[in-house]
C-alpha cells in the first residue's frame, strides 16, 4: 500500500486572512519574531497499489482536477510505503 500526503497552500500572492489572524494571536501570546503565518490543508490518501510512478501521475491529476484550485493554490506531495 502507498500513502500520499498532499499539502495545499494559498499562493504567495494571495492574501490569507486566516494565517494573518493566527499570526496576530501568536504575537499576542508573546511570540514577536514571526515573519509570516500561512494556513493550508493536508490531504492523506491511501492507495491500493504499489506502483509509485502510477501513484505520482494519479495524485497529480487529482490535485489538478479537484484537490487544489490552480488560480489561488499551490500543492506538493510525497508518496511513501505504508
Amino acid at each position, binding site marked *: 500500500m502507498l500513502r500520499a500526503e498532499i499539502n495545499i497552500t*494559498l499562493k504567495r500572492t*494571495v*492574501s490569507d*486572512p*486566516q494565517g494573518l*489572524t493566527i499570526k496576530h494571536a501568536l504575537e499576542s501570546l508573546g511570540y514577536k519574531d514571526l515573519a509570516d503565518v500561512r494556513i493550508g*490543508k493536508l490531504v492523506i490518501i491511501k492507495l491500493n497499489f504499489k506502483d509509485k510512478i502510477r501513484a505520482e501521475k494519479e495524485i497529480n491529476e487529482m490535485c489538478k482536477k*479537484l*484537490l487544489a*484550485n490552480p*488560480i*489561488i493554490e499551490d500543492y506538493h506531495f510525497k508518496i511513501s510505503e505504508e
Partner: protein
Amino acid sequence: MEFGVVVFPGSNCDQDCFYVIKDVLKKPVRYIWHKDTDVDGLNCVILPGGFSYGDYLRTGAIARFSKVVESITNFARKGGTVIGICNGFQILLEAGLLPGVMLRNENLHFICRYVYIKTENNQTRFTKLYNAGQILKIPIAHNEGNYYIDAAGLKELRNNNQIIFRYCSARGEVSEQFNPNGALDNIAGIINKKGNVLGMMPHPERSSEEKLGSQDGYFIFESIINWLENRII
C-alpha cells in the same frame, strides 16, 4: 417558459427561489436533483445558495463535478440562461463558467445582513429592468464572498462590462468602506462574456417582496422573464 432550481445536498435557498418563481412571479418552475441530467425544456436554470456538500474542500468544488453541472455547462454553451446565487456563484466559478475564485471573507466572519449594491451594467438580460447605476438593497449571507481574480482577469472583466454589481453605500458610493467581505474592486456579481451566465453573492430571492424588507431583487427575475418572453414571442 420554465425555470429549474437545482438541488444539491446542502442547498438551503432552493425553496426560496422556487417560491419566488412560482408564487411571486407566477411562472412554471421545477426542481432538478443534482444527479439528474435533464434540463430539457428549461429556459432558465437557477443555482441556489446553501452549503453544497458541506462546503468541503472549497466552496462549490465538489458540486462542480455533479452530473447536473455537466448538463448545465452544455445548456450554458448553447446560450441558456443561468443564474448562480451565493453558493451557486461559487459553483459557477469552480466549474469555470465564470472567471475568478472566492476566498474567505477578509474579516473571517460569516456575514449575514443587508448591503447595497450598484447596478454597473443594465444592458443584460438579468438587469434590463433596472436603471443604469440603480442602487439595490439586498441581503448577503456568506463566509466566502471575497472575490479574487488576477490583474489580467480584472482588466478583461472591466473591458467587457462583465462586472454587473458592486458593493456600495446607500447613496451609491463605491469604496473600501462599503465592501463587506474584501472582494476585489467591490465586486458582488459578474456575468460571462456571452452574457447568459450571471453569478452574484447577494440574494435576490430573499428580497423579492416588500413585506420581507426589500423588493429590489425581484427585478432580476422579472428582467429574465421579460427577456425570455420577448425572445420567445
